[in-house]
């Protein structure tokens, strides 16, 4: 339930963007701060639409923000 097989670099990208807060990112992509936190921790896999919006905020292609790895 807590490991969805999708990794992401959102924490790093937020730090690179001048320590952008989870709340600021949440506001930018229209989800709650808790949802951003759940995505960062791998507790929730966002929809494609939200994933694209997150990538757009950081100005990165989707695959640089989210990586899929098959579970063993």
């Amino acid at each position, binding site marked *: 339930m807590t490991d969805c097989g999708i990794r992401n670099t959102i924490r790093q990208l937020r730090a690179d963007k001048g320590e952008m807060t989870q709340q600021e990112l949440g506001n930018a992509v229209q989800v709650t701060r*808790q949802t951003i936190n759940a995505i960062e*921790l791998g507790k929730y896999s966002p929809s494609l639409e939200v994933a694209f919006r997150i990538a757009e905020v950081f100005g990165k292609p989707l695959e640089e923000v989210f990586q899929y790895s098959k579970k063993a």
Partner: protein
Amino acid sequence: MPFREKRAWISFLTIFIVGSTYFIYLFVLAHSDDPPGFYYMAHMALIAVFAFVLLDVLLHVVLYFMSPEDSRMPRDERELLIDFKATRIAFTVLVILSMIVAALIIHIGGADYLKGNMVIMMVVISQLVKHGMRIFYYRWGV
């Protein structure tokens, strides 16, 4: 704690407190020397429903004034998914309990107030499961 998790806790605790108080009171009454009639029991059920609505609305209003910005924010996709999954599990529980209650009524029977209260208990349990699952998903991920 997220705003909507607080709402789930409010609903869960309100249903638990009102429901358990009602059913314990009912149990004591039913086992007394002179059990009250159907209309008294129906009256008690109405009072319990009224108490639940009043308590639930009051606590939600307090929560609204404590965090007005969060309360205005629409539910996002994760919160909708949590509600959907919790409702689906609660519905399954409701269906299973319906079958059990129907079997009990057909094979065992009992007083009218007992049958009515079995149905009320079924709804109360399914709602406890719903809000309990919402809390679970908010805490441990969906």
